[in-house]
């Protein structure tokens, strides 16, 4: 795989404020790459530089090996497109919003009509063409922005927190469209997000950005499975417990997290520790669980959050646990608030922060 965008020693300062420090990054052709980091880490600025709408203070950007400069910047812009966190739309119809970029590319009326029909179908907004774009709901507006970007068949799609402010139903539609487009059209995507779950489901590679620097690049699992303290500080980790840990004879640790709860972890660490368990690593059942999992508790559901294809449950089992299951399992198990459930997770799913 060859790289489509190369960033060499990119720095960006606004006055005395250093936003990006010596960024070196290669985005491979056809991959979905995720930029993870807290607000203010420089993700948006980095995307804007990749989109050629912002100039770096120093450093070199290459697009398909060619250095981006005044001579080819318009050509690069025709090959990349960006979706903003705050949906930006022209105050006109959905049709004209999408037609804008096609017109700049010299498409005929027929081509434009066909393309718009195709992308509206992709984002599941057929029949919305003549509606005023700004009158749509937030999620629908973002889908129009996505349709507008997809219509261009650009080689690179840059997305800045595209699902930050929209409802779960629209999130799942957009996620679905993005992964389909990447598979079918091999479109390279760079997605800035602070949602670890999203980064993991969509991206093949990810970079962790903190304070204007890239601190780690790798497969999403590599970054998330053993989070550093820096990562844990900003990511909203769920199921975080602190307690006193004792090392067992078997080489594991037993962490007393209070409320009569002891969690077994597959590491050797004594003293005060903070551990977390990812919601999707917890097994949930209506009946007692017989498995090799070292941690098994009984509890009851105290809260249900429907997130579209997935459902998050808050289970009180001494402490409160967030458990994530698919909508299908949720329906099959016919769960409701106050229902008695059993949860289980492996000692190896318990991570120290």
């Amino acid at each position, binding site marked *: 795989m060859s790289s489509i965008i190369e960033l060499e020693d990119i720095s960006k300062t606004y006055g005395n404020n250093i936003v990006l420090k010596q960024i070196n990054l290669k985005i491979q052709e056809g991959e979905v790459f995720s930029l993870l980091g807290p607000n203010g880490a420089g993700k948006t600025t980095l995307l*804007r530089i990749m*989109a*050629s*709408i912002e100039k770096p203070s120093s450093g070199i950007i290459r697009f398909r090996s060619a250095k981006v400069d005044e001579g080819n910047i*318009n050509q690069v*812009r*025709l090959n*990349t*497109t*960006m979706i*903003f966190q*705050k949906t*930006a*739309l*022209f*105050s*006109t*119809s959905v049709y*004209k*919003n999408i*037609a*804008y*970029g096609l017109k*700049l*590319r010299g498409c005929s009326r027929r081509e434009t009509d066909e393309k718009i029909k195709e992308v509206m179908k992709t984002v599941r907004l057929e029949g919305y063409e003549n509606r*005023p774009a700004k009158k749509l709901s937030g999620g629908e507006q973002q889908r129009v922005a996505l349709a*507008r*970007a997809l219509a*261009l068949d650009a080689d690179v799609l*840059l997305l800045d927190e595209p699902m930050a402010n929209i409802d779960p139903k629209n999130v799942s539609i957009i996620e679905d469209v993005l992964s389909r487009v990447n598979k079918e059209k091999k479109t390279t995507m760079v997605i800035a997000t602070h949602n670890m779950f999203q980064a993991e489901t969509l991206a093949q590679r990810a970079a962790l950005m903190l304070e204007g620097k890239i601190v780690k690049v790798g497969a999403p699992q590599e970054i998330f499975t053993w989070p550093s303290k820096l990562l844990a500080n900003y990511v909203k980790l769920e199921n975080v417990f602190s307690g006193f840990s004792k090392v067992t004879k078997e080489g594991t640790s037993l962490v007393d997290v209070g409320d009569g709860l002891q969690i077994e972890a597959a590491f050797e660490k004594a003293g005060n520790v903070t551990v977390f368990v990812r919601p999707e690593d917890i097994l949930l059942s209506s009946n007692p669980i017989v498995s090799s999992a070292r941690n098994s508790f009984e509890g009851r559901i105290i809260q249900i959050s429907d997130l579209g294809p997935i459902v998050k449950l808050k289970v009180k089992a001494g402490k409160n646990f967030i458990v994530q299951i698919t909508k299908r399992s949720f329906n099959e198990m016919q769960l409701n608030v106050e229902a008695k459930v059993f949860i289980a997770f492996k000692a190896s799913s318990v991570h120290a922060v």
Partner: protein
Amino acid sequence: MHFGLGNEIIDGFLKALQLIFSGDPTVVEISIRSFLVSSLAVMLSALWGLPVAMLLGLKRFPGRFLVKGFFNAMLGIPTVALGLILYLFFSNAGPVGFLRLLYSPTAMIIGQAILVTPITVSFITSAIESVDPEIKDLAKTLGASETEASVAVLRESMSGVVLAITASFNRAIAELGVVLMVGGNIAGFTSVLTTTIALETSKGEIALAIALAIILLLIVSALTLAVNLFQKRMTYYFRGE
């Protein structure tokens, strides 16, 4: 005395209606000239005002604040004062006296264009400034060049542009000072609605003055009404077209 004046006004008003509805050649000629002079003046002011407004609205440069302040201050320039300055410019002894423009419709058009330029520039600048700053970036991410992106911003501010043009036209057609000083109110050549109303009233020809005043009010209010009614539709059509 009161009753006499009252009758005179009623008589004048009735005669005025008669002049309008009979299509009196003088009324028609003056109205058309007024409309043409002010329309061309507005076009001229848009021609030089629009690039200035785009520069002020989209670019940040040293002195921008001063330039904006100048145009804002010029919004309320007294028309007679500007008329006098232009008279001195166009007069034989003036710097452009050799063009022999004084007392011509051309001088009136230029004069009104200068008069309304601060309205065009200030209104369009604020319209551009009020557009979401992401629109320019959005246009660029969809493949627009710097110029194309600026045009996209201008399209988004179309309602402000329409308002600026309407306000400029209303100010131009309703002003007296500039057209009187540089046009001279020559019958059949440079007389327009406002200058004729002033002259006829001072002559005691109240009927023609009232007729022309009604037409002036009709033009201004009809245009404003039409813009209000169609503004939304018009701007919606222009954007992204």
